[in-house]
């Protein structure tokens, strides 16, 4: 027995009202000195017991009325007739027999015995001494007869499109919702990507909900099984009806149900604690299609690329099916989702095989660009035949070099080698064409002339301090805000460096711009025996990962004569610096520290040839180019995201409060507002459940493209057998109904199944009837009990 409005059940406390009235009446009596006592006494002699019985009966009836009314208003639900019988029906029957005792005194022994028997039976059954024949007989309720609260978990991941599975699912959902009994409430939770209900709350407008469900498309990511079940249980908990059920319509791909055991056990616990357990029905609408070729991933060699630079686009293709492609699988490269491919090729892909295709492409226009790899295969799923990535094509990366040891002589200044390596074409005076355009726009300023307000304008992404002895306080604070807002800073040390200033001012708690403190200087300029090299290990860091391929140069080629020994913490402090590379002596060569949105990279030696011969080695150019692009790259948040992730775009602070339009893959547009956060404005958009390209347009026409991709696992069409499904769902509930819709109509099967099921049933109608009957009975009894008896 449960209550839909538990609070109102406490209204049963109103039972004290008739009791109090009774006691109050008895205690406040009038005294009459009476003469005709012989008339009264003979009446009393015959009637006293009878009158007492009648008064008790009336009192019981009056007390029963508020109790039953409270139970009625609290909408009592019985899941099994047993308790209802011995808590409500039998006491009422006992009362009825008691009334018969009062009305027919000649048969009082018979009725009295029956009344006592009812009470004894009820008490014995309640105490569990014996159950009677009715125990555990659930209350049956046909689906089309009574109102229900239903949550449909609808799989709208794109794998549902195989074999027309989603059409079946949509037809079932629409048909089911439109057939619901009046008074029902329902909710449809879409499972693809992340659980997303159509309406925020369950609605009783089930027909409208059904219509909406019929118009849905399956083009979403892998189902969020646990999240959807969690949302479903939370929704069903708030259901307004006693009959509750969760219907999961899916194609039951193996990939969806992997590694769910632990989470399902938690959900089972929640389900077990539900007072009105929902029935769970699984409807399998999946088909047996297996032929599928998908683009599993797309990788670009860099996420920021200069105009005219070559970019490598590598895509991984997989043949999930059994048909083979012998050099006839078309692969196309599209830019900005234009119809005509910029490049195309054909590949061979045998069953079960994974293949790679590699394209190179040069972008001619700067801006946020989407690169798409598309395969021309006729298979079960279309949505996974293409995959995109967003790439930022930069015109130039602004790098400001602050020279702490300038020189008039060529290549003698501290930054001369660096400038040459960062802008090789410009320095070589080669004619400016797209192919020979430098990505990096480096400008040099001498330390004496360095004015942050003037030199650090919006075009500079990276600042290099090369052998700078120290800076003024204003310069430091300008640098600090530059880095904290996402700028990159490269500290190259040297003989001019004032180690105390670096440790105390740059590395102070307020500035906190120094990755590792400076200790002493290692090596010697005169003694060749103390030379050292960079340890050429496998580099995890993106700035150095290029050197994992020895063809791109080897950092260990260069000798270092002198270097600053950088103090690594002993592991107890708050070490937030990462060491990127070490010298053979064990000292740090490169260290990195993230400072809010920006990054500081510290190099232990000089960037010119004073302390090392690195500038004349082949690894120098890629190293400085990589470090500069890496530092510049960090300014933007990622733009290739899994479906459902939040898109984030940084804007200058002055843009705060402005609105941006976001165009979704389905063509719908939304607006987001840029809000001030720290020293920047941030625009965020989180409704990215649908995989595809999202374009964020600012007021000035600048647009940014984000790409969200579905999980490649969704392309795996391996289905679970019914046994496997039952095995998986055993962790969720003990009894789950399963409908295979592959051959017969799902709705017809469901209705057949539902007719045989049992649920808790609301009893308010019975209780209300009993209350009305008791009220009427009270009136009648009051009249009857005033009748003649001598």
């Amino acid at each position, binding site marked *: 027995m449960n209550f839909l409005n538990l609070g109102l059940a406490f209204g049963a406390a109103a039972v004290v009202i008739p009791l109090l009235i009774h006691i109050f009446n008895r205690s406040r009596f009038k005294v009459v000195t009476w003469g005709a006592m012989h008339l009264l006494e003979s009446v*009393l002699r015959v009637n006293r017991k009878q009158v007492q019985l009648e008064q008790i009966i009336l009192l019981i009836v009056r007390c029963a009325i508020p109790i039953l009314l409270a139970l009625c208003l609290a909408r009592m639900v019985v899941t099994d007739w047993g308790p209802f019988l011995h808590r409500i029906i039998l006491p009422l029957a006992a009362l009825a027999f008691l009334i018969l005792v009062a009305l027919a005194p000649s048969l009082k022994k018979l009725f009295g015995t029956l009344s006592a028997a009812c009470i004894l039976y009820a008490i014995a059954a309640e105490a569990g001494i014996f159950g009677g024949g009715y125990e555990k007989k659930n209350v049956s309720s046909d689906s089309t007869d009574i109102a229900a609260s239903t949550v449909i978990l609808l799989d709208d991941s794109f794998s549902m499109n195989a074999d027309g599975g989603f059409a079946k699912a949509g037809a079932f959902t629409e048909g089911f919702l439109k057939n619901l009994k009046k008074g029902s409430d329902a909710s449809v939770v879409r499972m693809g990507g992340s659980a997303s209900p159509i309406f925020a709350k369950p609605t009783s407008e089930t027909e409208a909900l059904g219509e909406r469900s019929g118009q849905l498309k399956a083009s979403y990511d892998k189902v969020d099984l646990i999240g959807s079940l969690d949302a479903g249980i939370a929704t069903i908990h708030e259901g307004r009806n006693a009959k509750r059920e969760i219907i999961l319509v899916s194609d039951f791909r193996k990939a969806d149900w992997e590694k769910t055991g632990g989470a399902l056990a938690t959900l089972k616990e929640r389900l077990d604690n539900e007072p009105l357990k929902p029935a769970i029905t699984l409807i399998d609408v999946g088909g047996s299609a297996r032929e599928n070729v998908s683009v599993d991933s797309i990788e670009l060699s860099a996420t920021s690329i200069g105009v005219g630079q070559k970019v490598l686009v590598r895509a991984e293709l997989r043949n999930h099916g059994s048909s083979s492609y012998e050099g006839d699988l078309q692969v196309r490269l599209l830019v900005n989702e234009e119809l005509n491919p910029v490049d195309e090729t054909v590949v061979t892909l045998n069953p079960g095989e994974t293949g790679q295709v590699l394209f190179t492409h040069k972008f001619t226009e700067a801006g946020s660009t989407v690169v798409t790899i598309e395969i021309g295969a006729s298979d079960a799923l279309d949505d996974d035949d293409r995959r995109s990535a967003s790439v930022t094509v930069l015109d130039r990366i602004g790098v400001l070099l602050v020279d702490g040891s300038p020189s008039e002589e060529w290549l003698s200044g501290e930054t001369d080698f660096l400038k040459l390596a960062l802008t090789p074409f410009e320095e070589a005076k080669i004619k400016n064409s797209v192919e020979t355009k430098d990505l990096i726009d480096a400008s040099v300023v001498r330390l004496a002339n360095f004015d942050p307000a003037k030199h650090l304008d919006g075009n500079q992404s990276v600042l290099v301090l090369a052998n700078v002895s120290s800076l003024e306080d204003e310069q430091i604070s300008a640098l600090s805000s530059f880095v904290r807002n996402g700028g990159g800073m490269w500290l190259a040390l040297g003989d001019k460096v004032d180690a105390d200033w670096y440790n105390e001012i740059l590395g102070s708690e307020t500035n906190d711009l120094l990755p590792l403190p400076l200790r002493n200087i290692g090596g010697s300029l005169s003694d060749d025996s103390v030379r050292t090299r960079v340890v050429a290990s496998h580099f995890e860091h993106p700035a150095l990962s290029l050197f994992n391929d020895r063809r791109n140069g080897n950092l260990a080629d260069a000798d270092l004569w002198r270097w600053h020994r950088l103090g690594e913490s002993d592991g107890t402090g708050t070490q937030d610096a990462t060491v990127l590379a070490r010298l053979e002596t064990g000292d740090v060569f490169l260290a990195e520290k993230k400072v809010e949105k920006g990054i500081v990279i510290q190099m232990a030696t000089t960037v010119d040839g004073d302390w090392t011969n690195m500038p004349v080695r082949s690894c120098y150019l890629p190293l400085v180019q990589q470090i500069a692009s890496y530092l510049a790259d960090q300014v933007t948040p990622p733009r290739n995201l899994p479906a459902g992730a939040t898109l984030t775009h940084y804007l200058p602070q002055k843009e705060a409060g402005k609105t941006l339009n976001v165009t979704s893959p389905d063509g719908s547009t939304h607006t987001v507002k840029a809000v001030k956060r720290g020293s920047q404005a941030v625009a965020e958009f989180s409704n990215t459940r649908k995989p595809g390209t999202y374009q964020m347009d600012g007021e000035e026409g600048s647009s940014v493209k984000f790409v969200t991709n579905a999980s490649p696992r969704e392309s795996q069409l391996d289905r679970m057998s019914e046994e496997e499904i039952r095995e998986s769902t055993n962790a969720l509930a003990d009894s789950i109904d399963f409908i295979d819709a592959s051959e017969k109509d799902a709705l017809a099967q469901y209705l057949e199944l539902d007719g045989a099921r049992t649920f808790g049933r609301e009893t308010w109608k019975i209780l209300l009837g009993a209350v009305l009957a008791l009220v009427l009975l009270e009136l009648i009894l009051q009249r009857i009990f005033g009748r*003649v008896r001598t």
Partner: protein
Amino acid sequence: MATVTDYLNPKDLSHLANHQVLAKRVVEGFCSGLHRSPHKGFSVEFKQHRQYVPGDEIRHLDWKVYGKSDRFYIREYEEETNLRCNILLDASGSMAYEGTRTKGRSKLHYASRLGACLSYMILKQTDSVGLVTFDTKIRKVLPPRGRAAHVGNIIDVLEDTSPGGETDLGAVFHELVPKLKRRGLVVIISDCFGDLDSVMNGLAHFRHAKHDVVIFQIWDPDELDFPFKQWTRFDCLEMAEKKHTVDPTHLRQAYLENLENYRENFTKGCYRNRIDLVPMTTDQPYADALSYYLALRKRGGRPSRK
């Protein structure tokens, strides 16, 4: 000291002025011939001739008729005799009842005034009247006198009477019968509560002694319609230890039924014994009921059985 006007309301008396209390049966004269009449020289009015039967006194033979018809006839006369009336007033505890509608007018109060009124009327027609008050036992006896001033004595006794004690009508009547030596009118003013058989026995005793009996049964309206609603404790007026706390609404029907039953039996018993039963309620002026009864009696009828 009570005055006559406390008990006798001139308005009531004028209402009753034309009524005379006539003993319906000729109290003494009816039996003449069976017993020697003590009353001689009374005005004698011829009534009828009757055939002589052996044993009749010869001196009553009408010789003139014998001379004409050669048959023996006896002359019969209608005799007037003095009415001797005894008023029996019940002063038991139950007569002290006064209901909500009759505040200040208990049944005894009503009965006393009725008794005084009757006495006055009887004395006025030069008959004699006496008074007996009783509860379980006889309390006071005032023998019948014909003097007009006797009403004062009666009122003094009424004034001194206060309710108390249990009712035992049967015993009192048995005790009283031998004391009323001469046949006459016996007027009982009582509520007649008590064991019905015992009361009827007592009344039969009166009838056996050839008294003409009239009962004025005094009711309070509360006793007739039992109007109590809320929980009530009924304390007995006659026996202090009898107390019953009940919900009167549940008992009302049964009480009324019981009352009806009792009244019917009582009425039947009275009818059987040829006793006039005149029910009176204390909220009605006694003059009305009395005047109705007297008018009826003058016509020679009897109150209906109901």
